[in-house]
């Protein structure tokens, strides 16, 4: 059974149709790279899946269970929405770290708040917090930041900030982790450290969807590539099929531009 299934997602902002029927599915451990030029709807797609926008049509299933259905009219309670949100993690292009918290506090905040809803929170508070802290430190070490636990985001480089935000997203154990152009706000020399972290996650078989402009990286790390244009997926397949032997004219044009650069 696919871990994530996107069925015919449409989204319009006023009269502008941004997504015009996007569908794909992924198995556990799959890594999907989403390519496409600016304005093709990649970011909107991620935002719809992560409940930051509401799709106007379509359905989203996780492990075969519907987490979103545009046809369903009933109002979803905020509690239910938050439970559904736990399925997904999102790494933003602009990091969006909480500036007043240290790297460690940024990673610990959401798990700590979530733990307060546990029935045994009051009795085992110290132990639960200790566990969350241990996990957070372990995650930050995994992204190479064990030395920077008590640094504030303003004291970190862009690459380090993005690695904190990856650790922060992983702290809630999402079933699928989404990256929205994770290296676009970074200098080229900092891009490498983020791509390395994502590769490490790939080795750990974390299911990921990566919106990126790094074609070489997509070819190296992704199992499957989808190419978007005008709010639709116009080509999809293995990296060899889509990147090396694109059939669609738009894909060819897009890749040619990159090869020339």
């Amino acid at each position, binding site marked *: 059974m696919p871990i994530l299934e996107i069925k015919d997602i449409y989204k319009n902002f006023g009269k502008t149709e941004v997504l015009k029927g996007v569908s794909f599915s992924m198995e556990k451990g799959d890594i999907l790279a989403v390519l496409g030029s600016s304005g093709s709807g990649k970011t909107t797609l991620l935002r719809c899946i992560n409940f930051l926008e509401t799709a106007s049509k379509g359905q989203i299933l996780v492990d075969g269970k519907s987490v979103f259905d545009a046809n369903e009219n009933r109002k979803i309670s*905020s509690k239910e929405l938050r439970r559904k*949100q736990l399925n997904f993690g999102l790494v933003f292009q602009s990091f*969006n770290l909480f*500036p*007043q918290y240290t790297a460690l506090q940024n990673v610990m905040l959401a798990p700590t*708040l979530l733990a307060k809803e546990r029935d045994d929170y009051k009795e085992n508070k110290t132990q639960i917090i200790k566990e969350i802290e241990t996990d957070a430190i372990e995650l930050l070490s995994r992204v190479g930041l064990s030395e920077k636990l008590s640094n504030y985001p303003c004291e970190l480089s862009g690459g380090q900030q993005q690695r904190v935000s990856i650790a922060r*997203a992983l702290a809630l154990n999402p079933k699928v982790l989404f990256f929205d152009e994770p290296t676009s706000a970074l200098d080229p020399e900092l891009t490498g450290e983020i791509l390395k972290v994502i590769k490490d996650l790939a080795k750990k078989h974390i299911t990921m969807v990566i919106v990126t402009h790094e074609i070489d990286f997509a070819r190296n790390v992704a199992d499957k590539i989808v190419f978007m244009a005008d709010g639709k997926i116009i080509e999809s397949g293995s990296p060899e099929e889509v990147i090396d032997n694109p059939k669609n004219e738009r894909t060819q044009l897009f890749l040619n531009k990159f090869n020339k650069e």
Partner: protein
Amino acid sequence: MSQFTEICQSLFSGFGLNLALFAGTLIAAIPLGLIVTLGSMSGFKPLRWVTKTFVWIIRGTPLMLQIFVVLYAPGLLFGMPMRSRMTAVLAAFIINYAAYFSEIYRGGIESIPKGQYEAGQVLSMTKVQVFFKVILFQVIKRIVPPMGNEILTLIKDTSLARIVGVAEVIMCAERFTKEGLIGPLFSTGLFFLIFCGALTLLFNYIERKLDYYKN
């Protein structure tokens, strides 16, 4: 010598009223302002409209006039005259400052990037958690300078209380001008000057404390 003591006693007791008005206004207007902000940012249009009209009227008319209205309107309109002039003045100040504070809060809240809310949301935090754990602190850091400004204005505005006969420091000093002494009146400036100096130091200290991170 005894006259000097008399003047001092009078001025200090007068400034006591200024300080009481100052403290009372802050204690009530700081939280009340937040409620007004919630109203003016509400998604419910009628509420937003009512709140914005309220803020417009309060900011658009003189505080001096508002003091008269609060003092006389209850008696004239509802037959329930204000018992204490001090209470009337305090009420007028609270309403007036809550309106100004609410606009400072709104500016602070709206200046926080949307990404902060979105980051909280995708981390499955509730709206309340996002506000109190993520947004509020950043808002406080941003509004300290404008709030400092407004609070300095407040202590000086408290001298308006004299227009309805509340014996604040300037009114106390004016009594001595009738005896031919102008010194006490001018020296009231020192009270405000020293108090504002202390407040400025306090605000600088708070700003430094909050300066451990940059946005």
